[in-house]
């Protein structure tokens, strides 16, 4: 291109002016450069620390390795609850774009997933918070976990999460003693008064004891979680592990339960006529509980193994809705009128207060006219002595003894035995019951608060406002067995040394009874109690079905009049009690049995005690099975013998 001379255009001047403007362009570049460099200086030199920390937070994650919960054993070291290593297959919801695609993938590659179930699961997940992961498979098999880990890069949204599972190898057995575990709830975490709140170091997803000794001894059973520090990429895929603090398992706990006795007790509870009742067996010399049955029961595995599946949720809902309340621990939460078992308290009170003496204890039996009300008595024994009154359960005798005692002295002895207080058994949510006292009557019947002779007579033989828990009755019968020493019924025997959830070391611990007390009972009084209760079983008494040849069983039946307002149907039938121990002179075992709505205690509850005592006697004395079968057959009043072996 040749420069053409144009009018008014000077190429030299044009280049000069362009040169000036090029300088302006150069300065513009310099200014931009200074701004960018300044920004780099600000980010990289002045604020390095801030960004370095954010980069570190980006790339590292701390993952919890859940600690194994301590095992629970019976007194002889047989396993009652363990923690199994287990994995859940979970999907992080926010990373899933197409649920159909994921469904196909899972159904093809993970064992035992059904399409219907999965689609229901995903539908439900829509209403759950987005950050929560969806468990698509609990208790995943080894192959499942391997598949997930092998495909982590392709499908980062599918993960295998370690989740040790509580496992109760005996299923329903001793469920109410053991309790169950579950995730700590939001309410508990935020409640300042809860032992499981955030301040105590709990966090969402922690597995805690929800009931039973799992809850009471949660601090012992929980271990210290471990940690994995890993490097992740922007999609959360683990690239590398930088650090690992191994978890420390919780401490093992040994309970006072004896699996052999628990098993026979469960078997005895299983055929209770209304399918409801209680059996507690213990060592009267120290309060150690050998067996604890609240019937109907439940399988605690449902809570730990299936709580997140639909099937499991349905099962749990059914447990809550069941009218027989299987989750409710009747041993400590059920309150029932004690019936004639109460007569021993009135006996001890009468002897201690000098109303009757060992030498002169005869009182008139039979019905009694109190004001315009006639109290009937099933017994008409003339004027029996106190031993006969106990063994033959003479109602009329106790009406009159009660009237002679009067409310003050009577109530003093109710309090001395510490009825109306928790026994302090190591299970949560124990009830206190209602006392047969003037204050209780005034509270329950505010329109007729006055204490009448009728109230006195009824209270003295175990009715009235009286309602107590089977565990209170157990402590009472144990005290009667050993002559007034009242031990706290308990399930905890010992725990091994180890680390708690905060990492603190603990040495082995044994149960210490801080709540025991003594009820003053003279040798003579004790002797009368023993004779009366022995007579009830071995004489012509009401508890004959509990008799075990050679074992000197002592016992007392009771028939608790059901005060239910529901007058229609079987639910108004009386509850049948038996309480007893053996052998008479050196007690080793005691039992309290309640068969709900079954009628007379002698027929319903005493034979079950007989079967339990027989089994115990056979095993501890090394007797042969034939003897057992005979005894059980006889004990069960002609019904076919039901003996359960391990």
């Amino acid at each position, binding site marked *: 291109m040749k420069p053409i001379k144009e009018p008014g255009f000077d190429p030299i001047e044009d280049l000069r002016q362009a040169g000036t403007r090029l300088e302006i362009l150069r300065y513009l570049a310099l200014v931009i450069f200074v701004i960018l460099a300044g920004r780099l200086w600000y980010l*990289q030199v002045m604020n390095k620390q801030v960004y370095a920390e954010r*980069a570190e937070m980006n790339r590292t994650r701390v993952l919890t390795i859940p600690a194994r919960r301590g095992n629970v054993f019976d007194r002889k070291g047989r396993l009652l609850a363990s923690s199994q290593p287990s994995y859940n297959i979970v999907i992080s919801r926010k990373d899933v774009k197409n649920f159909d695609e994921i469904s196909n993938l899972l159904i093809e590659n993970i064992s035992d997933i059904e399409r219907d179930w999965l689609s229901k699961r995903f539908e439900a997940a829509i209403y759950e918070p987005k950050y929560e992961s969806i468990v698509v498979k609990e208790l995943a098999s080894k192959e499942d976990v391997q598949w997930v880990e092998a495909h982590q890069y392709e499908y980062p949204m599918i993960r295998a999460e370690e989740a040790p599972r509580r496992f109760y190898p005996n299923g329903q057995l001793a469920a109410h003693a053991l309790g169950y575990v579950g995730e700590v709830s939001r309410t508990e975490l935020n409640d300042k008064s809860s032992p499981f709140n955030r301040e105590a170091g709990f966090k969402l997803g922690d597995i805690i004891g929800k009931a039973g000794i799992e809850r009471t001894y949660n601090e012992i059973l929980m271990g210290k979680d471990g940690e994995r520090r890993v490097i992740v990429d922007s999609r959360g895929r683990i690239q590398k592990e930088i650090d690992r603090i191994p978890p420390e398992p919780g401490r093992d706990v040994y309970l006072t339960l004896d699996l052999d006795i628990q098993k026979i007790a469960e078997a005895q509870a299983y055929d209770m006529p209304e399918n409801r009742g209680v059996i507690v067996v213990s060592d009267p010399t120290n309060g150690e509980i050998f067996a604890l049955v609240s019937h109907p029961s439940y399988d605690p595995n449902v809570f730990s193994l299936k709580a997140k599946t639909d099937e499991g949720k349905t099962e749990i809902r059914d447990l809550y809705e069941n009218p027989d309340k299987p989750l409710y621990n009747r041993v400590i939460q059920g309150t029932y009128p004690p019936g004639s078992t109460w007569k021993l308290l009135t006996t001890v009170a009468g002897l201690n207060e000098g109303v009757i003496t060992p030498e002169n204890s005869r009182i008139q039996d039979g019905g009694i006219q109190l004001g315009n009300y006639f109290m009937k008595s099933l017994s008409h024994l003339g004027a029996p002595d106190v031993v006969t009154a106990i063994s033959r359960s003479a109602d009329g005798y106790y009406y009159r003894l009660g009237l002679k005692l009067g409310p003050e002295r009577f109530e003093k002895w109710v309090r001395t035995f510490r009825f109306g207080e928790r026994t302090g058994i190591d299970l949560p949510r124990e009830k206190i019951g209602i006392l047969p006292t003037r204050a209780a009557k005034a509270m329950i019947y505010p329109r007729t608060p006055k204490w009448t002779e009728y109230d006195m007579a009824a209270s003295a033989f175990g009715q009235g406002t009286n309602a107590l828990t089977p565990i209170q009755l157990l402590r009472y019968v144990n005290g009667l067995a050993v002559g007034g020493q009242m031990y706290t019924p308990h399930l905890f025997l010992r725990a091994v040394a180890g680390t708690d959830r905060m990492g603190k070391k603990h040495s082995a611990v044994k149960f210490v009874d801080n709540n025991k007390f003594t009820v003053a009972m003279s040798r003579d009084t004790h002797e009368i109690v023993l004779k009366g209760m022995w007579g009830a079983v071995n004489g012509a008494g009401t508890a004959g079905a509990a008799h075990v040849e050679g074992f000197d069983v002592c016992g007392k039946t009771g028939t608790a009049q059901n005060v239910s307002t529901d007058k229609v149907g079987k639910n108004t039938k009386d509850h049948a009690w038996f309480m007893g121990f053996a052998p008479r002179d050196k007690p080793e075992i005691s039992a309290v049995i309640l068969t709900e709505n079954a009628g007379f205690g002698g027929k319903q509850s005493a034979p079950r005690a007989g079967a339990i005592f027989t089994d115990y006697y056979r095993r501890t004395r090394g007797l042969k099975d034939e003897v057992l079968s005979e005894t059980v057959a006889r004990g069960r009043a002609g019904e076919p013998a039901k003996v359960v072996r391990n």
Partner: protein
Amino acid sequence: MLGINRRYLSDFDWPLLGIAMAIAAFGVLEISSAEPNPGLWRRQLVGIGIGLFVIFVTTVLDYRRIVNLAPYLYVIGVILLALVLTPLGKEVNGNRSWLYFGSFGFQPSEFAKLFTILLLAYYLSGVKKRPLDLRTIIIAGMIWALPTALVFLENDTGSALSYSSFLVAMLFLAGLRWRWVIAALGILVLAVTFSVPYVKTCKSYKCERIKAVYWPELAEKRFRYQNDQSEIAVGSGGLFGKGLRGSTQGTLGFVPEVHNDFIYAVASEEWGFLGSFLSLTLYLLMISRLIQIARRSRERVGVLLAAGVAALLLYHVTVNVGMVVRLLPIMGIPLPLMSSGLTSVVATSFGLGLAISIRLRRFVN
């Protein structure tokens, strides 16, 4: 035509080539660090090889002959841009800027930019008027508007804006009246001021990207994320950086498009302020060198062409680094010679080749 003789070798702009190769080598190193897949950095090496060949061819040819071809090149460029909008085009990351012939794909807009610079230089150098009259400005504007509109339709705002960078620079150098320059700046300031309230409330992804930088609290989280991560990458590099392959922000995928538009973030993370400042200085030197070539040219066409290339590179560096350090919104603009991508490297080489060719012929008339 100038053959390869001693003059060619002694007058060749070795410093400029040296700077360009230093930047490109640093780019390959960082691509290999950011993306362990060897395919990418090897591809980049191939791109640099092609780029060197393009520089050689361009410098051997007289740039004036190339300028004379400008109308044809411009038409080819526009046709290619139009083809992108047909089913031959392909959308990548929301920008429909790729053209595929079988498995071979490239971005026509990278070349169309240079073809437009060539046509503007061709046209404006023919207009022997100073200051420029309105007619010239309008015709130059039309040359600019056609490819810009097409790129805009491809939804590639960053590239569309880059056309304005060299248009403005070339008009300014060709003799735009000062009062027009000041009026244009005034309108720009007013437009920005008045669009602020609109941008703050608007929800389109372009607005969100702007908000993510200037009003992060108003922006949606997912738009802030890329800015945050890039900022963290740069900042965490500190003074000396985390060393080669020390990047976590880049290699673990926190920074997006890490081998491409955000390569500077990884470079800053691995080499710290020292590295990022040094590479920025290389770019400043390169652009200064191009302006120097424009100044030395004895011809209007040489001045305009070299300055157009300089303005384009300045725009690319400013927008790319500005977006990495969170001073400017995220736009799909590669960092010349460092970002991986054959088209970008070859197109930049072509621009540099043109400038070197101008320098080689600065005394010849």
